[in-house]
């Protein structure tokens, strides 16, 4: 689960990770009030969306007067922001964060993530902070300093020194930097985060380190330990169809093609998308109905798939294990009675009691249900059906 910058900065404050003062606003006048309370004569208005790259896309703007704060906030609220991380459809800005303008002397990058190879959290820092960090990582990886931190010993001075000296910090900057990094490590571990990113981390004119940006993601499996974090979930940032699917224990992702897919198991679901493409078609979605595949989940699956008007055929690909294929076949028949399915449905059931299942589907004799014998046969038929060739 991801959260907004303003929420991440709130958590940072609790852990003593220094951030500029700021407040969230939902309207122009509210933005003005927040700025007035902050005082000063330079503010930054920042669009709050779950994606990076806002600066380059016009989602981060400086304001030099209260009138300007209000005007910029009004323009930003409601706009669709398209950045390189939102996908072409962009994200609607529902709230803005008003922050005091910082006196930036130098921008750094500081991030934390789980390193799957060492199976430890790793902290990464670079002097090339700012909006081009991915390019830096790709072209000059040596400019990124990484330290894996063994959680059984926790954050030690040497971890901090390795980063600080790697960044070429001056003598008097080393202690405050290490303090900053240690606080960040504590946030990451305490809150079961899976991502923290501060880009940029800045050094101010008065020699302080401040987190100007804050991105945080959490391990969904650990949210039960952190009701305060779970409460920060912003459903408006998520695809409503995916949220609806999750309520039924289904995992759905919408795609651009026209062959709908209903599969049990994430691996087989991905493999099904692959084989549809391999056979010359385009998958319309990823849908994992899980191990159960009962009439209710199958019916819900059909509903989700058919919400997408591009869908011209559906490929049901289920490998029956503990749940027997004959029961799944009956489930499919029942589901087609509950939901009006007006496109051809190619059904491939394999595994336990596959023959009985094939009999059931054949005997039901429903016009738009087309049985398939195996994975390749099913994919071919589904692709042909989508092209109107079946």
């Amino acid at each position, binding site marked *: 689960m991801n959260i907004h910058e303003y929420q991440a900065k709130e958590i940072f404050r609790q852990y003593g990770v220094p951030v500029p003062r700021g407040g969230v606003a939902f309207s122009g006048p509210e933005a003005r009030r927040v700025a007035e309370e902050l005082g000063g004569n330079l503010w930054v208005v920042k669009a709050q969306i779950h994606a990076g790259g806002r600066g380059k896309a016009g989602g981060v703007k400086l304001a030099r007067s209260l009138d300007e704060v209000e005007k910029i906030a009004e323009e930003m609220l409601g706009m669709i922001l398209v950045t390189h991380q939102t996908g072409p459809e962009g994200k609607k800005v529902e709230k803005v964060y008003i922050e005091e303008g910082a006196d930036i002397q130098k921008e750094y990058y500081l991030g934390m993530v789980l390193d799957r190879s060492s199976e430890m959290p790793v902290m990464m820092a670079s002097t090339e902070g700012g909006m081009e960090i991915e390019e830096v990582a790709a072209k000059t990886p040596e400019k990124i300093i990484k330290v894996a931190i063994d959680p059984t010993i926790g954050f030690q001075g040497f971890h901090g020194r390795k980063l600080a000296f790697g960044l070429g910090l001056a003598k008097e900057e080393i202690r405050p930097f290490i303090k900053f990094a240690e606080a960040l490590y504590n946030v990451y571990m305490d809150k079961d985060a899976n991502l923290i990113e501060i880009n940029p981390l800045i050094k101010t004119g008065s020699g302080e380190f401040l987190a100007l940006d804050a991105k945080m993601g959490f391990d969904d499996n650990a949210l039960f330990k952190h009701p305060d974090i779970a409460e920060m979930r912003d459903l408006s940032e998520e695809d409503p169809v995916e949220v609806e699917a999750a309520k039924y224990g289904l995992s759905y992702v919408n795609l651009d093609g026209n062959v709908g897919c209903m599969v049990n198991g994430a*691996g087989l679901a991905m493999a099904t998308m692959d084989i549809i493409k391999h056979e010359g078609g385009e998958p319309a979605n990823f849908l994992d109905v899980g191990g159960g595949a009962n009439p209710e989940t199958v019916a819900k699956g059909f509903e989700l798939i058919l919400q997408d008007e591009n869908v011209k055929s559906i490929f049901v690909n289920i490998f029956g294990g503990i749940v027997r294929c004959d029961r799944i076949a009956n489930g499919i028949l029942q589901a087609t009675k509950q939901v009006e399915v007006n496109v051809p449905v190619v059904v491939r059931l394999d595994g336990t009691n596959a023959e009985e299942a094939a009999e059931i589907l054949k005997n039901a004799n429903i016009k738009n249900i087309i049985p398939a014998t195996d994975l390749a046969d099913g994919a071919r038929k589904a692709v042909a059906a989508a092209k109107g060739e079946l």
Partner: protein
Amino acid sequence: MSILVNKDTKVIVQGFTGKEGTFHSEQCIEYGTQIVGGVTPGKGGQTHLGRPVFNTVKEAVDATGATVSMIFVPPAFTADAVMEAADAGIELAVIITEGAPVKDMMYAKMYATKKGMKTIGPNCPGIITAEECKIGIMPGFIFKKGPVGLISKSGTLTYEASNQVVKEGLGITTAVGIGGDPIIGLSYKQLLPMFEADPETEAIVMIGEIGGTLEIEAAEFIKQNITKPVVAFIAGQTAPKGKRMGHAGAIISGGKGTAQEKMDALRAAGVHVVESPADIGKTVAKALGK
């Protein structure tokens, strides 16, 4: 022969008396697995499925001589269960539970490694040595005995692959579902040499997925150490690049992790990489000259 488990392996079940634990333990017993007892704290002294229940893993190990534990304990307590198994001298823990926090599993795996306990999973179908020993939730009958070793991140794709192999008139020595969580136990790199050393295994099927770099590391390992034919499929060739929030993931993996990169690395290591998941069985048969 086989790897890791066989008809003589003595297995206990942690979370034995729960709904999942009961259902799947029954299936395993039916398959022929030597389930010699189980652990449910507070239910020690009872009998369940005709087997003794213990309060602690240590008691279970002392009384039964079990060396393997199958874990069905709920996510919030999974890491604790894994560490208890390691502390009691269990040699292999097969962790079926889905949804355990990553941080918990990170600590659990470190402790297991320190104690010399191997782990499989979490969030996996388990391990099966065909017609001898099933420790997990896979449908047993799909796994007919034969010369092919199987390692897979995905559950249903394991069944799919085994089914295709069997349809070619071949079969499986041992199949291991390693799971796809960020922290997992035994992976390709540890399992490949076991299959290489197993005299009954003549070919190895490896099923991977997008994300992480385990398959890339496996490719490097295969090039140096594996002489038996390896057939691989990587799921997610057409998966769209997920919407991301930060850059850290991209930075840490250094751009590795796409299906294409994994397939290229495996091909360069001499692996028979199939583009279509329907070609796994055929390709194994061909590699074995059958």
